[in-house]
């Protein structure tokens, strides 16, 4: 059985990323939580296994921050669901976070792609 603390660690690691992905999936329009989870999983070609519990906590956090809004509604297959949508503030965040993410991945890529560092150390 995993302890609560370990769980917390994983969220802390994923936090920024998960927020970014959630915001991104909401661009086309309002979605409910399960829809967000499915979309992320599908678009990442099943690389990400989204922890559903964490997802809902993250959704709540984003809502608390005012980046997304939420409203109870009815899904296509006639089930009651809570629908999330981007707020203007959330849209701005998405742009900023996306930029940050691009810079980060580029920097990491630069380091990983170069092949001098390790050899120098060995010699």
């Amino acid at each position: 059985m995993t302890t609560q603390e370990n769980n917390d660690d994983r969220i802390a690691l994923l936090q920024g990323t998960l927020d970014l992905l959630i915001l991104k999936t909401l661009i086309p329009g309002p979605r409910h939580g399960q829809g967000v989870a499915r979309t992320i999983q599908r678009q990442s070609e099943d690389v990400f296994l989204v922890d559903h519990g964490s997802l809902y906590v993250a959704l709540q956090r984003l809502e608390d921050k005012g980046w997304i809004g939420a409203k109870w509604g009815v899904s296509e297959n006639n089930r009651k669901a809570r629908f999330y949508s981007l707020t203007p503030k959330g849209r701005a965040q998405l742009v900023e976070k996306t930029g940050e993410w691009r810079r980060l991945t580029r920097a990491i890529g630069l380091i990983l792609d170069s092949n001098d560092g390790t050899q120098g150390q060995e010699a």
Partner: protein
Amino acid sequence: MLKRKRSAEDFAEEIKAHLALEADDLQHEGLSKDEAQWKARQQFGNVRAAQERFYMRGRWVGLNKLGRDLRFGLRSLRQSPGFAVTAILTLALGVGANTAVFSVMNAVLLRSLPVSDPSRLVYLRTSNPPRGTGTIDTNKTFSYPVYDALRKHSGGVSPLIAFVPLSGGKVAVRYGSQPEEAEGDMVSGDFFSGLGVNLPLGRGFSEQDETNHAPIAVISYNYWTRRFARNPDILGQTLFVNGVPTTIVGITAEGFEGVEGGSSTDFWIPLQNRPELNAWGNPPDEGKTYINDPTWWCLQLIARLAPDVTRAQASAQLQPVFQRAAYVGLGGTPMEGEKPPVLSFVDAKSFPGSDQMYGNPLRILMAMVGLVLLIAMANVVMLLMARNATRQREFSLRLALGAGRGELFRQLLVESAILVTAGGALAWAFAEMAARLLGRWAQIETSLAPDKTVLLFTLGILVLAALVFGLAPLRVALSGGAELVLKTSAATSNTDAGKSRGGRLIVALQMALCVVLLVGAGLLIRTLQNLENSPLGIRVDGLVVFGVKPNIPSVPEGIAFYRNLIGKLRVLPGVDSATIMESRLGSGWSDNSDMMVDGRLPEVANGTSRTVRSNVAGPDFFRTLGVPVLAGRDFADSDTASSPHAGIINELFAQRFLPHRNPLGHTIGTDDGRYTMTIVGVVKNHKYRSISEEPIPMAWCMYAQIPVIGEMQVEMRVYGEPMAILPVARKVVQQLDPNLPLIQPMTQRAQYDTTISGQTLFARLAGFFGVLAVVLVATGLYGSLAYRVSVRTAEIGVRMAVGARREQVVWMILKDSLLLTVVGVALGIPLALLVGRALATSLYGVKPLDAMSYLIAVAGVAAVALAASALPAGRAASIDPMKALRTE
């Protein structure tokens, strides 16, 4: 954002919806209904954990936890009410005593004048007055011509303000029909505007008012409250001051009580030139009041430094003006070999005089209550440690069940915060009361109400206490660790805690502090005893004294008034004799000067002072006081303006200035040679100004024979209760003049006692704090020993089971506390020596190394230690070994 936006139910609802949607999707992908539901749930993971995290999110959690900790803390304190009450009371006494003494110290020594920009205000001081002048204080007072000259010289300071009391004590005032007394000052026109004192009601004075000597008055907020019940209609009403009508035009802001520390002024009027309103209530000297008498230096001056001018620059600018003005009316230049006076400035930010008067005692008291606080805090820490040590199993259990150390710490902090809050609230109430009492005893009239500084001081102590009380037990609480819970026996799990070396050190230190406090208290109480028992040389019981200040148009009329008054008073039933004097005995006031003996200043041995104290007295003076006349006679009714001038001296005058001669018949007189008298009597030395003084040469002249006459003090010897004569005496005085109140009536004993009120207060407080320390140390010692015995119950049971005798057990416990006592005393005595040296100036008739005080202190501490150990030792000895072992 202040309300929780979403309920936990709503969140649970959403999860339920998610599971349904997911199951729908999975079913769509070909799973059976049951499989789909199972998989949806499995994919979701821990639903409860998600719900918990939802609940824990955000700021509400902290508050929730705090509420829980508070409830828990209160509950656990309620389980041990004895502990809680002791801790709270101890803390309240310790903190309360500190707050009380500090608020007095703050009001008297630290608080600055309640005026605008007090740091630019300075008092003027002179190195010495010119020769041939009379002063109130050789360094602090100036003549009116000096004030006038300095004021006209613009530059350096602006404005220059003069103020002078209308009397050495209180002034006769009347509002409506009943005469009464109040404290009043005459001041410059720019007194209020220059100091920057607010007048929320009415107006202050203008320079015009000073020039015109306008008959107007401003009253203080305190006087307004006390006498007029804050009636705003008082503006425009008439207040008679020494019979002169003045119109009340303003009321000062709350908190302004004049510019002298320790006293409070009730009203102010502009500087006057009428003889009834002379400075200090003196009668005009040959028709001259302070305003046209350059030889009487009686005004105090305060100035505001001009912007961008330093103190040195300003005094340099004023120096030549001052030195010229000082000799106006005195021949213009200093006499041969005379040092001209030098002007200087001192800080007026806080009240300078009060430091001299109260500074040292207050600082020592502050140190004493600081020690009391240390002892009190140490006590509470020990109590907490003992209590939490017995809770070690509880803490271990909670650690084992997964509580974080942070949580334990937070809970201990909350518990200590509860104790500290309760103790602090109690301390504040206690301090407010104590400060008021202190002020009354010390006769400090300034408002002592605690202000923001005091509040901060107290809060500072409390926060410190809360932290110490929270941290101290933490070590004990955590030292057990989670595994301790596995030890099953209460006895074994507590053995380590009982031997805490820290606890023993604290007890020893407490004893040391207790020795210090007891030695200090002992020295001061012995000082007080010496003062109270020192013979006055006067039969003081049965004497009552009051002042009378009639309106005196001429000297013969003044003499007639007093002759009339004495005649009426001495025939009242119950009165043995009645007389008058100018300076009141035991009031601290005296008239000091050099005197001629047989036409010249007497030769004195090197280093001996030539100063003589003189007083003006009425008939039967020494018979009334009960001072024995050693040679010659007392003053009598037959000494009149037309008979030869009679003078009476004391023994010391005769010994010092007329040695080996019969003093009777010699001529003595003022140093300017204007008034002479023949010695007709020699009386025994007695205390004159105060109880603690050394004898000084004295001379008395007869009131009916001198060229000035003003306010007089009436002294009456009565049978029975002295104060009971006052209503009748008041009636007699008011038959002569309905405007006259009896000024400061009191028994002569009470008047003398005012001169040691400082020492009395000091000694009483020191004694009180000494006793408080002893009580605290006793409870602390008892508590820690009792606790140690209780945790050793099993061990003692074993010892007794294997043959230890009761005496051995008792000795084992007693030995422990005796050892602590020895260590404590050994530490305390060197500290006490230091304290004794600091106290040296406050002692009277006791040496700082007074063996008695030390013995009593050590014996006291030892007795307390024994008493506090006796009970636990007795309990240990009565342990039934079988029972002790069976409790496990």
